[in-house]
């Protein structure tokens, strides 16, 4: 361990934060969203099973109620976040060209945030009946 200190910059040694406490952030958030998704996915699948072949009015009446709407929004946030973290690793593993990798990662972030936001707004619209 003392040897490893040779490679650290003087500033890093003064701060004494190791990897500035962000080294495990990706790993940890992947787990946090995974644990959250377990009950959310089960509940959402149960709602969806009741909506097979349903018309728009039934979908609005079911998903628009406060509890199902909240569960759906939580599911969307956790799922898009979890997907972003997971697909990010797939890109980092298989895309070796630096420019293509960077572009893919940017596109992934933008797509997850934009589509995630759009679907959350859609649920809010169903719930608020606007």
């Amino acid at each position, binding site marked *: 361990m003392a040897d490893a200190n040779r490679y650290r910059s003087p500033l890093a040694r003064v701060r004494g934060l190791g990897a500035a406490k962000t080294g495990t952030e990706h790993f940890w958030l992947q787990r946090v969203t995974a644990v959250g*998704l377990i009950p959310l996915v089960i509940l959402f699948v149960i709602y969806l099973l009741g909506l097979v072949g349903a018309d728009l009015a039934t979908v609005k009446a079911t998903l628009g109620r406060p509890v199902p709407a909240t569960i759906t929004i939580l599911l969307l946030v956790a799922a898009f976040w979890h997907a972003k973290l997971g697909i990010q690793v797939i890109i980092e593993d298989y895309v070796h060209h630096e420019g293509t990798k960077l572009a893919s990662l940017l596109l992934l972030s933008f797509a997850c945030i934009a589509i995630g936001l759009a679907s959350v707004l859609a649920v809010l619209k169903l719930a608020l009946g606007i």
Partner: protein
Amino acid sequence: MASAERPLSPHLQIYKPQISSVLSILHRITGAALGIGLLLLAWWLIAAAAGPDAFATVQGFIGSWLGRLILLGFTWALFYHLLNGIRHLGWDLLWGLDLPTMTKTGWAVVIGSGVLTILAWIVAYAMKG
């Protein structure tokens, strides 16, 4: 950047497929597939908010034989990724890392995801009437 002269570790394709490696890559494949499934879910929700015409288009696609086949695939991918994800969380807590347990939980995931997929579709068709 790997140098072209460096020896490479044995390539993946010369290994006999094992439950550990096959389920591992399936976790990644189902994860990527579910990312696409999430787009379908987003389309469905946004269409429901947009109005009857957009909603009818999505329902028409989902109800078609191709849509149903895709949905069947997503159902299995979801249950597989859910069950194998729980297996991964167990490993994070150092549970079930020994080979006999790993094999058992692996088969439980394979069988469980199949059973849950069939059950979900039976319930779906029953609810639809």
